[in-house]
């Protein structure tokens, strides 16, 4: 069920990481979002990084979007996360289109699966459609350019495996008499997959691969499927979940080969600390994309001096003169 891997030599490869950040502010009369996405890609040598490039640049400016009035809290949050995902995909696509250097591997932060928003708001629905079409465009492009692309999920509440285990355990329990002494059912039911694999996997070991159920577009779904697996990088951190699209035309052997090569590339990038095992390009992209409180403050100060209109005032609760 588990596969032992060997970290690969990454020197000579160009590997990218993509992440985005977003935050929102409530103003009088309307609410606004701040977005930022960045791509960072490095070319490695055995000893060091030969060069690191940033797209669009090292500190991309904030993108500001005004939210519709009358959104529910849920809709508001949906809008934010879809928009952020769109911007990330845009940056990824642009990097693949514009880079003069061959990019070997592209790692994106999070999962490509965005839940379809449950809302009648047409704007949000449109954004969701845009996301799906951008996603399919990116996957086609990566496949055409032979870029190995994977999403890295650092933390997830998924419990597909634990639910499965809960179902089959009663049938095999007679072979595991120790389990009879504990209430295994409630433990298993309360655990998530990542916790489970934390105990089951050793560093440099990945779980079996499984296919995820995710609809993009009819045409796309007929050509690509999304696969996922867990990969343990360091002893004392929960495993990563790696998700990647693979062409349906590939045979099983090629598919597994690809997954193993990718895993063996991710391993050396993630092994620098016993308790923290996230690939370096994702760490770097996350650090660059993060929107700092100070930036927002400075931006507001600037807006307020240029447009001293009451609309640009923060809602009362954000204007409290006290900092408790």
């Amino acid at each position: 069920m588990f596969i032992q891997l060997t970290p690969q030599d990454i020197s000579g490869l160009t590997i990218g990481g993509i992440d985005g950040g977003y935050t929102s502010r409530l103003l009088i009369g309307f609410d606004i979002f701040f977005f930022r996405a960045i791509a960072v890609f490095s070319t490695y040598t055995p000893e060091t990084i030969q060069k690191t490039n940033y797209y669009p640049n090292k500190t991309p400016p904030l993108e500001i979007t005004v939210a519709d009035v009358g959104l529910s809290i849920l809709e508001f949050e949906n809008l934010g996360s879809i928009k952020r995902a769109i911007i990330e995909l845009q940056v990824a696509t642009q990097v693949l289109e514009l880079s003069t250097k061959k990019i070997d591997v592209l790692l994106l932060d999070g999962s490509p699966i965005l839940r379809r928003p449950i809302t009648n708001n047409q704007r949000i629905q449109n954004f969701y459609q845009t996301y799906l079409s951008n996603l399919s465009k990116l996957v086609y492009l990566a496949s055409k350019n032979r870029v190995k692309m994977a999403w890295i999920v650092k933390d997830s509440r998924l419990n597909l495996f634990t639910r499965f285990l809960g179902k089959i355990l009663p049938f095999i329990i007679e072979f595991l008499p120790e389990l009879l002494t504990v209430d295994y059912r409630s433990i298993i039911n309360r655990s998530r997959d990542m916790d489970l694999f934390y105990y089951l996997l050793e560093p440099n070991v990945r779980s079996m691969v499984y296919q995820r159920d995710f609809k993009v577009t009819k045409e796309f779904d007929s050509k690509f499927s999304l696969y996922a697996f867990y990969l343990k990088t360091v002893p004392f951190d929960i495993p990563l979940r790696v998700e990647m699209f693979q062409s349906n035309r590939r045979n099983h052997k090629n598919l597994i080969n690809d997954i193993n090569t990718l895993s063996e590339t991710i391993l050396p990038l993630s092994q620098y600390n016993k308790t923290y095992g996230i690939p370096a390009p994702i760490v770097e992209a996350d650090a660059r994309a993060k929107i700092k409180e100070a930036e927002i403050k400075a931006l507001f100060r600037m807006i307020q001096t240029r447009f001293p209109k009451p609309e640009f005032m923060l809602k009362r609760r954000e204007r409290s003169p006290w900092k408790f």
Partner: protein
Amino acid sequence: MIQIGTVIATTDSPSLELIELILEKENQSLVEKGQYVTITKNEASIVLGIIVSIKKYNAYYETLDSSIHEINSRNYEAIFPIEEWESTKVEVKPLGEVEVNSNKVSRIKFPVSPGSKVYISSPSIISTFLGLDPDGIYLGNLSSNNVKVSINLSRLLRKHLAILAISGAGKSYATSILLEELYKYGKLGVLVIDPHGEYSSIIPFIAPKANVEVIKGSFISIGVPDLSAWEISEFSPDISVVQTRVLSTIISNLKRDCNNLYSLQEIIQKVDTSEVINPRTKDALIGWLEILRRTFLFSAKTSPNISELMEPGKIVILDLSGIQSLWNRQIIALYFLKRLYKLRMQEKIPPSLFVIEEAHQFCPQNGRSVSKRIVETIAREGRKFYASLCLISQRPVNMSVTALSQCNSNLILRIRNPYDQDFIGKTSEGIDRSTLKMIPSLEIGEALLVGEAVNHPIFFKIRLRTFNSEDTSLNLGEISEQYEKEWKFKWKKE
């Protein structure tokens, strides 16, 4: 102007005391501690500051713990773009504000804004700001901004100058630079009291023969007929008031009888043969006069002629190296200073500078010194008569506080002793703690100038002498060789 960075907002900056900035990577190599920088405040004014500290920062190394590197043999640097995160934070101490149009310098009353651009200051703005004078006394150069440190003569000397440092730090060297400039300037008369005879070998290189006069201590004689009884008692402070009065009578008799040609010997005789003097007074007075006589400094005629000594642009050196007794040196210093000061008050000699090496020997804070009073007097009042002092010492703590505190400009070279540092902090206005802290780290030839001479304390490098004499302090080997040669020469002659 070269832009080097941008002011950032932190809890302490920008304030009236501190401005922090992030350096631009490209220009890092141009920046160094001690450099002057210009920060634009608004269209009308700029703020000038000095770099006091430079700090590099990298978030990747902020919480680097030992567990990194434990897993993989690959370096941390091999997978993270660490270099891209290196930033350099610079702390600038704001010094003052300059109005762009009028060049008017003032105190900073309101801080610059975060985001302000920071530039390397141009030499001309620094010059203006520090109150330098392109036509002044050229002492050296600022180490970083390519600025000539030329000081307005009047500001440097009028209210007296003190040159303070441990021995070997370059006091005498700096003084020789000053003398070189004063000779070129040509309007001041200069007297150097030189206990070690260092200058007699340097100055002839600085100025042509006609402008230098070296007077060896052994050729100096004080003409007793030129002295009043009160002046004689000043040389020997143990002579009592009663004794001085007696002496006064004797001297007026001698003047009448001897046509102004007498020395201590004659006075002693007259005292001895007098029948009106109380025997106890007589014995004591003769005792003191005898001690004075045995200094062999006194005779019937003063030499050299002091009233003709000082000329504009001329440097007179009293080389006292041949005189061992400190008291004797003090007597000479007292006599020369007193006479010259009086001549100056009567405007019979040009405006003058009196340079006193080893000034703690001539005007100590504690202990007796016959020359202390005249030095203190000139320190207090000389300004009115254009008589200036340049006091040089390696032990400021031992110097008369009265004299030292009247020195409104201080040129400070390296001082290690914390007592001396403390003392300088107290006597020297315009030195703050951070400036004081830099004194021990000064190297040979580096100096701090504070006080009247400049608008702000400045650290700079003393310039090289323009003449090319070898190092005047010969090493032991050279001295021995020289001695041997002279000795052989004498031997042959005999």
